[in-house]
């Protein structure tokens, strides 16, 4: 049990993620989680108003099933398979840079309270940082035609140059966020 309760090794995790992508390919589907944002939109009034959402989302039931399963999987992992005292052993250097920015360190949590605590959600700044981050994810992924699963895993596995360009974009954006945006928002 101890092996399961701690952080899973990157090689095992990566192997399983690759396998999930291949299993979906074998089922005749393409691994891509961001499509579900479009699917959810097309279940609403957006379907009649906007051409981009005017498709039969029922054809995408399989992908919505994965998203629902992912919620259940997250629950199982977090409540039954996790010893919160033995997770997120991050680099001491990262801890130091977090402390410099007044961002609380993991202590078994998946994300910092300054971003994800409920108290923070009910502040104007806290709410808009999360909403803005989500907005960028929601706008950027359909624009780029995929996210980490669709481009970085599926696309690169099929040696697609467009996916490589997209992944370079992902990292460009992520580096700007980590090195400039986060210090700007949280640094004093």
């Amino acid at each position, binding site marked *: 049990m101890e092996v399961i309760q701690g952080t899973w090794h990157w090689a095992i995790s990566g192997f399983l993620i*690759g396998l999930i992508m291949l299993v979906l390919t074998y089922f005749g589907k393409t691994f891509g989680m961001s499509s579900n944002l479009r699917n959810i939109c097309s279940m609403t009034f957006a379907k009649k108003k906007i051409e981009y959402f005017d498709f039969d989302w029922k054809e995408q039931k399989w992908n919505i*099933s994965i998203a629902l399963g992912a919620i259940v999987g*997250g629950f199982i992992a977090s409540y039954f398979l996790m010893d919160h005292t033995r997770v997120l052993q991050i680099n001491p250097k990262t801890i130091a840079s977090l402390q410099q920015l007044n961002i609380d360190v993991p202590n078994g949590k*998946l994300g910092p309270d300054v971003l994800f605590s409920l108290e923070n*959600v009910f502040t104007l700044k806290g709410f808009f940082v999360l909403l*803005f*981050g989500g907005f*960028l994810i929601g706008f950027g*992924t359909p624009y780029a035609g995929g996210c980490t699963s669709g481009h970085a895993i599926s696309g690169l596995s099929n040696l697609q140059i467009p996916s490589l360009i997209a992944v370079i974009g992902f990292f460009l954006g*992520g580096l700007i966020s980590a090195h400039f945006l986060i210090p700007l928002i949280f640094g004093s």
Partner: protein
Amino acid sequence: MKLVKFFIVGIVFGIVLTKAEAVSWYRIYEMFMFQSFHMYGIISTAIFVGVCGIIIIKKKEIQGFKGAEIKIQDKDFSYSRYIIGGTMFGLGWGLVGCCPGPIFILIGNGVLSILVVLIGALLGTYIYGILKNKLPH
């Protein structure tokens, strides 16, 4: 019943990403600060397994599950949409530390504030749908 197998794949996906800590804001921050190999290891191992698997599927002309047609499509070539869209997504990924899969997984983890990120993401996709034909692709 056809959907059950996808639901199970989703459960495994949720468990693996949680246990790999790929759903953690801290792991994403650490990755973009170049202070850990963990996330790079996960992504490159997944790609390595994927590349090998796709080559085998293509070479051996493996048939899909119960006659399902295996679709391995090439993506349309362009620069603008991948760089602009990709960078926008990356900015969000680096800021709130999650990509679309983990948004769902974190709901299950009980991180309720992620619902604000989900609402933001749906809003973003909605606005993209409106502006799609006016954007360079």
